């Protein structure tokens, strides 16, 4: 991949700026509608909480065609009084540049890491370009633990609807907590803080031509920080509301990408997790509060039908690597009534471990293996919804943590 620092315009900018204390990175692709709000929140956050620090905003763009980078360059804080700023606002340096390499968020992040390295930045944060709920306080919460408390990695902590984040709650969080011994609640949140030291460390890893560059960057950043003994914490950011993604986004592709990246990292860090016993809490910053959230509609019948179809058609595939007792259970649950539909935690854990072992042993083509997990995952979600239908969000959150 071409080093972005060789590009003339970026070199000139970096020579002008020389050094910076804080860098906020925003990856983007055709986000002209939403990125203005994010840039404003970042600028206000930096002005309010770090007025004496030299800061830079880096927009790493995937060659947008809707004028995203123009919006970034032209967005300013028009009225400092309305946001209760009474001191002079120093300008935030801005670099808006297309990234190079394999199209994907990871390549965008690499550009941000490289600028951070070139400017010898002390603290960095990355936020999504389609956030509706970002506030200036997010900048304080992602950067302050690094600058004032010496942490290297700040994971986000959101308040979510009890049925949101089911891949995180049922697979990624329990797996990464068990493997690496740190209770990072949202390992693939998408908005992170990290030290300049950690950014340099990320750049030493040769992952930029792999799936990490395409879609595995979030879990890779968290796992790399935890597994390499960097100081990790999390900050409560409130609700995460962003532009609705394409409603046709394929669930099986999401599972393949996220779970695939997690399994690949298990291979990389096998010597680390083999020695881990138990898990510990990570320090949590920010004042936690309950946020009113939009209701989430769920079509249970459709989910259970999909699960049953999966059992009918894919059971012969699963028999290759899933234990007999689990297969026997799946045959039994295929015919139960909706009210009795329940996949216990122990069964679900066995299923995930079977898939992990099968991925390690290369029993099947990896894409076939992980996409075949989809009906089982949908069944698990249906079971979870039925089990927690009457429960509050707090009870559900407690259950999600206890089940690990």
């Amino acid at each position: 991949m071409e080093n972005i620092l060789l590009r003339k315009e970026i070199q000139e900018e970096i020579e002008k700026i020389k050094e910076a204390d804080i860098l906020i990175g925003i990856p983007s692709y055709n986000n002209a509608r939403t990125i203005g709000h994010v840039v404003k929140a970042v600028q206000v956050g930096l002005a309010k909480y770090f007025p004496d620090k030299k800061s830079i905003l880096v927009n790493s763009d995937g060659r947008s065609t809707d004028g995203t980078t123009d919006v970034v360059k032209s967005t300013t804080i028009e009225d400092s009084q309305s946001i209760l700023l009474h001191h002079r606002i120093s300008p935030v340096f801005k670099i808006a540049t297309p990234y190079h390499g394999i199209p994907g968020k990871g390549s965008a992040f690499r550009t941000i890491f490289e600028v951070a390295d070139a400017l010898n930045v002390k603290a960095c944060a990355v936020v999504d370009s389609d956030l509706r709920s970002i506030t200036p306080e997010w900048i304080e919460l992602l950067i302050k633990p690094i600058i004032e408390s010496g942490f290297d990695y700040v994971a986000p902590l959101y308040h979510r609807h009890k049925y949101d984040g089911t891949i995180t709650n049922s697979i990624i969080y329990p797996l990464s907590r068990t493997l690496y011994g740190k209770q990072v609640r949202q390992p693939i949140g998408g908005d992170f803080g990290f030290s300049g030291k950690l950014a340099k460390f990320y750049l030493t890893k040769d992952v930029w031509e792999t799936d990490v560059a395409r879609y595995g960057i979030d879990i890779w950043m968290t796992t790399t920080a935890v597994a390499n003994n960097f100081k990790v914490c999390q900050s409560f950011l409130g609700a995460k509301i962003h532009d609705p993604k394409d409603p046709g986004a394929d669930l099986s592709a999401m599972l393949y990408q996220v779970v695939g990246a997690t399994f690949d990292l298990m291979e990389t860090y096998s010597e680390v997790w083999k020695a881990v016993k138990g898990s510990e809490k990570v320090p949590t910053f920010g004042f936690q509060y309950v946020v009113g959230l939009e209701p989430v509609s769920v079509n249970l019948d459709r989910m259970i039908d999909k699960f049953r179809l999966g059992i009918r058609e894919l059971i012969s595939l699963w028999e290759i690597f899933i234990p007999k007792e689990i297969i026997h259970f799946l045959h039994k649950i295929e015919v139960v009534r909706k009210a009795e539909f329940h996949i216990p935690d122990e069964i679900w854990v066995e299923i995930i471990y079977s898939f992990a072992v099968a991925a390690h042993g290369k029993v099947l083509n990896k894409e076939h293996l992980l996409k075949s997990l989809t009906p089982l995952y949908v069944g698990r979600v249906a079971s979870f919804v039925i089990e927690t239908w009457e429960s509050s969000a707090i009870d559900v959150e407690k259950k999600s943590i206890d089940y690990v």
Partner: protein
Amino acid sequence: MNNFLQKVIIEPFDRFIERLIQFLPDILTSIIIFISGIILGLILKSVFLRFFRVIKVDKLSERSGVVEMIKKGGLKEPLSLIFSRLICWLTIISFSILSLRSLNVPVIERIFERFILYLPNIFVAAVILFLGYLLSNFLGRAALIASVNAGIKLSGLIGKSVKLTIFLLAVTMALEQLGIGRETIVIAFAIIFGGIVLAIALAFGLGGKDIAKEHIEKKIKGEEKKDDISHL
């Protein structure tokens, strides 16, 4: 009488003995070549069996579905053993042919020549069949998983159809390579495949038009209640 015996029995017998004596070295050479072939075949079987186990052919074949195929064919031995036996038999057969050739009989030489010229076709056809089987397995499974994830009730049929179509295509290509009913096979395949596609189109267009209308309306009007869950 003596003349008669001399001409009818003794002289032909003498000629026969003479020819046999002339032929004996060739027979001896032929037997030696044949026995050498058997010994070499057994040695190669042992060597290749070890080699295939070192490069883990059995494990690779389990992933690709070849083991499934040979089990269905009634063979229960591991692929490494099957391959090494194949090499053994190929060696023995090759040496058998050489031993026949060493007899210097013109008819045998002509048959041998035609057989040698045909061998590359057999090899290519075997490779086409093997690759076709692997591809049919792979794509059939991909189609099955994709259609299950899309919630299509006939996903099993879709998966099997994809697998069968690709395998039939491979068989057609292999038969064409072997020169067996060249044009007939290709035309028959085109007719069958085209017929199936036409039948499906007619069935969907005429017989299933009400269902298709209902399905398309649901999709366009978004009447099917979807989930709002944000999975990540």
